[in-house]
């Protein structure tokens, strides 16, 4: 646990990628199994403890510390793990030896809900502030130490001088503590063999199109298709075993028994998971209802049946199609689909024909189906590659919508922005019999630079008119232009609307609040 804590601490303070890689590779080299395997799992978000959630940690700390003092401290520090670690009382007597990382993981996995607080409390008493911070971060998930899962895998690959793509290939067939992986990379065994029938294949992802980037691309080299507004899914179906993996390899199959039942045998298919409402494609909100139910009731399945709109085919039977060019895979996909036209749960995402970029842009603006959030551009000659390789796939999102709204409330941010007022609630004007009043329409906490953040923070501190716990109400005088992908009806919000992905596009220091938009402007943008 001590070595792991020290690794996390060094990672968080090391800005350079190379330094982080070196720190992690050195840790993996110097640490024994199974500790290093669990560390790798933690760094790749592969650990989940059912009974050690933030609320449980908070309750444990509050059993030792005055809750009011904890609340003030948390508001100041802005990070639960760090607040809890710092405020935990130092034991008066000499400490017992701290646990090994593997002991923590293995015992927490078996522990029942009622046993967790005592276990955790005893461990915290053996550790110093950094150790406590690492332990709480470990069990509460999401280390956020500035090292991505991919970087951690790259560091592991470096142990054996392998390319990270080789790790990706087997990764989803392995489980913590990854003994076979380390044995292979340290030269003590062969590459791990995985069960292809149930293994996730790393997905190919697209880059957003930068301004002006289109001018450097030749339309003849590309194929276009709609980017549907559902969730990207990989269907793996062999020998009666069926899995639906999300983009990160999480198995979401149990939430979609209807689609699993309808899935064809002997293939790996890349597509978009959507739901239907009658003859139409449901909105993302409709899909969200299905996603929220791990075991959906039959009535929900009947009302919002799931379907897969297919983009690509990776395996047909035992044949790995990934090395083939996109255009060739597309031909195989169309033939595969044509043989299954009777299957209502599967349909084909059509290609969009175009002569040049301008024609495509116009077509996208005028003929975009409601359920599409933009276009995908794919090179006709690209093989199917893991990750986000440069120069192959691009996403061309539709222009975001925007509105001028007034800042109403502010809260301190977390993580890198802790202690700054960086989470804002914005409102638009609703005109009623008593005149115009602001109603909150959404929260936005990104889209601005650090310099803007400092100015916004200063604005909040200088214009506070009221405090509700950690929330400050500010004088309604600052207008921001919010961008968002779409507007939906929402009975849960006072304004009756909800914004999808709102962000701050511009801070309008110049604009008087009275000139901000009315709620009607948002209502007019509702699309499903």
């Amino acid at each position, binding site marked *: 646990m001590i070595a792991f804590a020290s690794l996390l601490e060094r990672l968080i*303070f090391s*800005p350079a990628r190379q330094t982080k890689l070196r720190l992690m590779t050195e840790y993996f080299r110097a640490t024994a199994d199974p500790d290093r395997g669990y560390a790798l799992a933690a760094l790749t978000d592969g650990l989940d403890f059912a009974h050690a959630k933030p609320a449980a940690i908070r309750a444990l700390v509050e059993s030792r510390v005055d809750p009011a003092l904890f609340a003030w401290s948390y508001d*100041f520090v802005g990070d639960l793990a*760090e607040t809890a670690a*710092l405020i935990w009382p*130092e034991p008066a007597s000499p400490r017992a030896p701290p646990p090994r990382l593997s002991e923590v993981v293995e015992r927490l996995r078996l522990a029942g809900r009622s046993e967790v607080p005592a276990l955790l409390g005893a461990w915290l008493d053996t550790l110093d*502030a950094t150790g406590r911070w690492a332990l709480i971060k470990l069990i509460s998930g999401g280390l956020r130490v500035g090292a991505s899962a991919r970087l951690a895998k790259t560091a592991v690959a470096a142990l054996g001088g392998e390319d990270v793509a080789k790790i990706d290939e087997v990764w989803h067939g392995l489980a913590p503590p990854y003994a076979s992986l380390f044995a292979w990379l340290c030269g003590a065994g062969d590459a791990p063999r995985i069960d292809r029938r149930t293994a996730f294949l790393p997905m190919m992802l697209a880059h957003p199109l930068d301004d002006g980037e289109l001018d450097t691309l030749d339309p003849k080299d590309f194929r276009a298709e709609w980017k549907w507004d559902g969730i990207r899914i990989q269907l793996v179906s062999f020998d009666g075993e069926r899995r639906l993996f999300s983009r990160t390899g999480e198995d979401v199959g149990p939430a979609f028994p209807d689609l699993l039942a309808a899935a064809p045998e002997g293939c790996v298919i890349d597509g978009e998971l959507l739901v239907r409402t009658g003859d139409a494609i449901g909105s993302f909100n409709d899909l969200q209802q299905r996603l929220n139910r791990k075991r959906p009731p039959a009535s929900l399945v009947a009302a919002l049946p799931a379907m897969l709109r297919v983009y690509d085919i990776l395996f047909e039977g035992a044949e790995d199609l990934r090395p083939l060019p996109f255009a060739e895979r597309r031909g195989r996909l169309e033939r595969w689909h044509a043989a299954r036209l009777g299957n209502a749960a599967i349909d084909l995402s059509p290609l969009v024909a175009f002569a040049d970029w301008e024609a495509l842009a116009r077509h996208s603006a005028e003929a975009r189906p409601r359920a599409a959030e933009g276009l995908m551009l794919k090179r006709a000659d690209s093989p199917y590659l893991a990750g986000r390789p440069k120069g192959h796939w691009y996403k061309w999102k539709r222009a975001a919508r925007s509105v001028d709204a007034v800042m109403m409330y502010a809260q301190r941010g977390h993580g*890198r922005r*802790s*202690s700054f007022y960086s989470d804002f609630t914005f409102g638009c004007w609703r005109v009623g019999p008593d005149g115009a009043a602001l109603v909150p329409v959404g929260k936005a906490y990104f889209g601005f630079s650090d310099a803007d953040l400092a100015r916004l923070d200063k604005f909040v501190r200088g214009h506070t008119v009221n405090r509700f716990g950690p929330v400050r109400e500010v004088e309604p005088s600052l207008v921001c232009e919010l961008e968002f992908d779409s507007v939906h009806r929402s009975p849960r919000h006072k304004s009756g609307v909800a914004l999808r992905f709102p962000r701050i596009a511009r801070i309008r220091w110049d604009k008087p609040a009275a000139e901000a938009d009315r709620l009607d402007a948002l209502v007019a943008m509702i699309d499903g």
Partner: protein
Amino acid sequence: MDAARWIYPSPRGLYVEPAGLFIDPPGAVDRAVITHGHSDHARPGHAHALATPATLAIMRARLGGGFAGTTQALAYGEAIRIGGVDLRLVPAGHILGSAQVVLEHAGQRVVVSGDYKRVADPTCAPFEPVGCDIFVTEATFGLPVFRHPDPLGEVRRLLDSAALFAERCHVVGVYALGKCQRLIALLRQAGYDRPVYLHGALQALTDLYVGEGIALGDVRPVADAPRGDLMGAIVLAPPSALADRWSRRLPDPLSALASGWMRVKQRAKQRGVELPLVISDHADWHELTRTFADVGAAEIWVTHGREEALVHHAATHGLRARALALVGYEDEGS
């Protein structure tokens, strides 16, 4: 008479009415008592300023000879009476010359701590607890998450890093008055006898400390040092210089920062610090709360910092407590 009637906060600072004087006023006043030389406490332009000899010397060095109309030096422990108020200064342990103001009037004793700490500091006299009815405390680190570790341990971490990354110049951000000189003294205490290099902005006050009899060993201006000498060396600079162009001329600088705020990792990360050193000249939570018990005051007034938690703590320990909401004081090194 209730003490709150003869000493109270006003927009111009904490005011002692019978004596007609303000303590650490944020703007120019007729009669001021200055607890210590940090610029947010020691402002120029008062008609009359009273402080310890070292604090007056620091003000002279920072603000020039005419920083006040007249000055009055009062040594630690020496008592005077102004307008029926007995006043003396006792060490606060914050920086060289720092003092608590002990006031007695109408049978009541009020101690205004100024900024203070309880841990030993080789560059200044230790804090002296004085029993009182009302204790007016600072609250810079007034949250229980703040627990400053042993400063020598922190200095050893710096020395370990300088030994491990012997090719990198270790630039430590320090406040020019107090922290800078204390860090040098701590390095000497830890047995470090190589030269310590200074950014130009730290030179004058360091010279002043040496002139006051505080031994700091071999201290040199970084501007005169050959680049080769700076590899693995320790350079002290104002925090603002860490991210500045100035540090680029140093060989592969590794940025460290010595401040009580470094206890919070997210803070250190925000500032781009690679080696955070938790060294503070302010009392941490445990020193603050322990001091309340040591001085035995029935009432605690909190001047500036994170006052809510301290007020809550005092109240739950049977003390009367209030936040004065004085304006004009800055947080340490942030």
